[in-house]
């Protein structure tokens, strides 16, 4: 008995110098993806967000909205501005997505990959942040960026926002810094840059994403988080079709 304890102790002592090495080992792709989800889509939150779409002709349009999230499957978004979309709401339940049109007094089903309010984000970008469920990931070596880990993600479901994603997380604190979004055939659709990192109720995360349209290169959209509270626990009754418009 004592003998085995001594052996364990000896083994532990022998391994001790190796521990720092273990801590410095490269994070796995799954760990990085988990980190991304925890930063970009915390379990529950209430956020105030602004999206500005910059269009081909140089005009811009800014949308203000609040987003409420509960668990990984439920989102509810309400537009506050501009007047043209005030009262519009969007609801996600699992793979289903609807938009509620106040003038029609009913909800209409939408597709994940439709443009979000005519901008360069798609609906899933805003209302479906669960990369661990949607993608299989592997790390790839990127010699051009020594400061970041590069992940290559392939969609596991057609409901994912994109068929293929390349994601860069900086090594210093594993915050996302850049994303590239591709079709199945490898054509780049969008490119995102993450910036303005700050703490939202204790959660360090990017405060702004700029999404560039790689097909119509004059176009881009920015999304910025004015506030985000992760300590909310919204009731499930908020996430049903009948509650929209109320």
């Amino acid at each position, binding site marked *: 008995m004592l003998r085995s304890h001594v052996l364990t102790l000896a083994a532990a002592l022998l391994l001790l110098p190796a521990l720092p090495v273990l801590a410095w080992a490269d994070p796995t792709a799954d760990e990085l993806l988990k980190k991304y989800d925890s930063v970009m889509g915390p379990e529950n939150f209430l956020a105030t967000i602004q999206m500005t779409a910059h*269009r081909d002709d140089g005009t811009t349009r800014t949308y203000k909205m609040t987003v409420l999230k509960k668990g990984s499957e439920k989102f509810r978004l309400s537009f506050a501005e501009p007047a043209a979309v005030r009262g519009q709401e969007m609801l996600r339940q699992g793979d289903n997505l609807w938009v509620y049109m106040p003038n029609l007094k009913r909800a209409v*089903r939408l597709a994940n990959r439709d443009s979000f309010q005519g901008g360069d984000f798609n609906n899933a970008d805003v209302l479906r942040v669960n990369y661990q469920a949607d993608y299989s990931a592997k790390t790839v070596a990127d010699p051009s960026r020594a400061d970041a880990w590069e992940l290559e993600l392939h969609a596991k479901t057609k409901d994912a926002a994109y068929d293929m994603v390349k994601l860069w997380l900086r090594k210093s604190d594993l915050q996302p810094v850049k994303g590239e979004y591709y079709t199945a055939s490898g054509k780049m659709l969008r490119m995102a840059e993450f910036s303005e990192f700050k703490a939202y109720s204790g959660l360090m995360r990017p405060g702004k994403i700029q999404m560039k349209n790689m097909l119509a290169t004059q176009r881009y959209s920015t999304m910025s988080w004015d506030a985000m509270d992760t300590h909310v626990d919204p009731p499930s009754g908020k996430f049903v079709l009948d509650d929209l418009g109320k």
Partner: protein
Amino acid sequence: MFSLLQIAVRNVLRNKRRTAITLAALLIGVSVMVSIRGLLNGLQRSLVQNVVQGQTGALQIHRAGFLKNVLSSPLGLDMPQDAAFERKLLSVKHVKAVSPRILFAGMINVADQTIFLGVQGVDPIREFQVVPLRAKTLDDKQQFASGKVADAMVVTEQLASALQGSNVPKGAPAALLAPDRDGALSGENVTLTGVMKLNMPGEKKIGMVRLDVAQRLLKMEGRATEYIVAVDNIDNIDQVAADLNVLLGKDYEVSTWEDIAAFIKQAMQRQNFILSLVASVFLILMLLGVANTMLMSVMDRTREIGTMMAVGVRRSKILGLFLMEAATIGALGGVIGGAVGSLIVLVLNRRGISVSFPGSNVPFTIQPFVTPTYLLTIVAIAGLGALLFAVYPAWRASRLRPVEALAGG
């Protein structure tokens, strides 16, 4: 000269069987060429009518740069839709009617299903004055075209079946969604009054709503992205296009149906090219037949030629005689073939042939016809061609030595 022709005609009539065979070759060749041309003329005329009176109108007016960006449905490239602007368009000579449209991309929702589609917002009355054949593509018993259903919408059969398996119940409530002129998502309730058939190949998931619904949806009251124009006579379109261009200036572009439906024009050019290839092959085969019988004739008539030479007929006369015989047969065959071909075309014209385009399911009748110019040309080609192909046999005849010829070659 006249006597030479007389002898030639007599010679042609002398060997009835040989003449009959040659004439038959010419007759079949010429009548087939006339019939095919007639069919193609009818087909092409229907094609043009179908496009001009069923889809595009004779002319279309857009803001400059619209057609280049048509795939992105640029709502920003719009124009006024009001009485003053329309009066201006109608003041142009030969313009018969105009009608506004807005083209945009959107989504239609029925029950819990949402599908992307291309939408045309049209004036439910005037649209069918400019493109009357389009009314035939609607199955909703003129509900849409009556203009009485305020939120009426029709969709293509393809879209309807994608929406509800096979058919959407008439009067089904639906919602039409689209980004408005500023890009914000907007929606309007519509009622599906029926389905329309496609009369042109191209995009299959299409819907048509009333202009005022589209204007409300897109926040574009009093605006349109397109005017379609009908003219009194299709031959005047270039004149009208030029006048409209002057009237509207460089902020607008005026296009003829040929610019809009360029594929139709190209298809017609391709058809014409193929027809001329086929016709050339027919012509050469037919004329080789003539050359062959002429050669046979020279062989058969060696003694006769020898006799003519012996009594002092000059070689040039002999050459002329045989050429004249060939030309006579050629002209005769051409005329008879042309007549038979015209008769076939005339019968087909009276009857009409019902066809439909690939990619469209609206049958329409083609009425073959040929122009007098084409008939004259084909008869001339048959006569002159026969003459040309008889040069060698005639030359052979004129080179015979009288003594040997008299001895029978």
